[in-house]
């Protein structure tokens, strides 16, 4: 049941990325190009998602278990440190280069786009490198 709920959430998330235009890198770059002909659409994606998400997270906040009885696993870290800032900056640079963030990369891969496959493989390589770095540094969580 948990696996089915997960599949459904992924599917609805993916449909949202397609409907919103987020799955199209050209659209994303049009949003990130403030100095060019700016397309503000993606601000509406965030607005719509957060308006609905906020209600769900408000309900979830005081629950100890999910509706399927699994433990609530919300992040507890509050650290605003070099890792958070540096990692987010690196991610933003990568996002700005191609217009892909992780979700849209996977959805475009599902459309059979070879370029999305290249992006996703490189992204997995980046994640794998980080796992290796962390293991070597001995701070793996």
């Amino acid at each position: 049941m948990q696996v089915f709920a997960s599949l459904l959430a992924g599917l609805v998330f993916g449909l949202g990325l397609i409907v919103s235009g987020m799955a199209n890198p050209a659209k994303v770059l049009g949003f990130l190009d403030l100095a060019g002909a700016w397309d503000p659409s993606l601000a509406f994606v965030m607005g719509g998602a957060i308006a609905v998400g906020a209600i769900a997270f408000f309900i979830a906040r005081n629950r100890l278990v999910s509706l399927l009885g699994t433990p609530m696993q919300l992040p507890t870290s509050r650290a605003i440190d070099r890792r958070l800032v540096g990692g987010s900056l690196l991610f933003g640079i990568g996002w700005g280069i191609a217009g892909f963030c992780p979700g849209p990369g996977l959805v475009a891969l599902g459309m059979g786009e070879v370029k999305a496959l290249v992006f996703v493989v490189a992204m997995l390589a980046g994640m794998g490198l980080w796992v290796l770095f962390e293991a070597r540094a001995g701070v793996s969580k």
Partner: protein
Amino acid sequence: MTIAWSTFTPWSALAGGVLIGIAAGMFVLFNGRIAGISGILGGLLKPAKGDAAWRIAFIGGLLIAPLVYALMATLPMPQIDAGYGALILAGLLVGIGTSYGSGCTSGHGVCGLSRLSPRSLVATAMFMAAGFVTVFVIRHLINA
């Protein structure tokens, strides 16, 4: 600043955003987890017992979304202008950055802001700022 009115699609953007919010909301209420795509995917690289199935299911849902969409309407195809070298560099940076920063547009941007996390607000401000600057440098300085 000029607004690109010809490509501005507020209603479909809002509708898609609501779907994304519903997905993130369903996921936290039913599975008790944050719908953070980089974290869900990255977790598969450090497999723990019994931890893989839900991750694969979520990623599978994202991958089949275009097929399901195509059953209902004509699928809009993405326009990917970046070349292969740029895509590899972008992928590496996104993979390393989201791992190091513990999240991406979904985990920090959608879920984090929905639950008013100060940490996610900082992360979102950082990756948005870096995205704006990167596109400015590429489009208006390098390719000017």
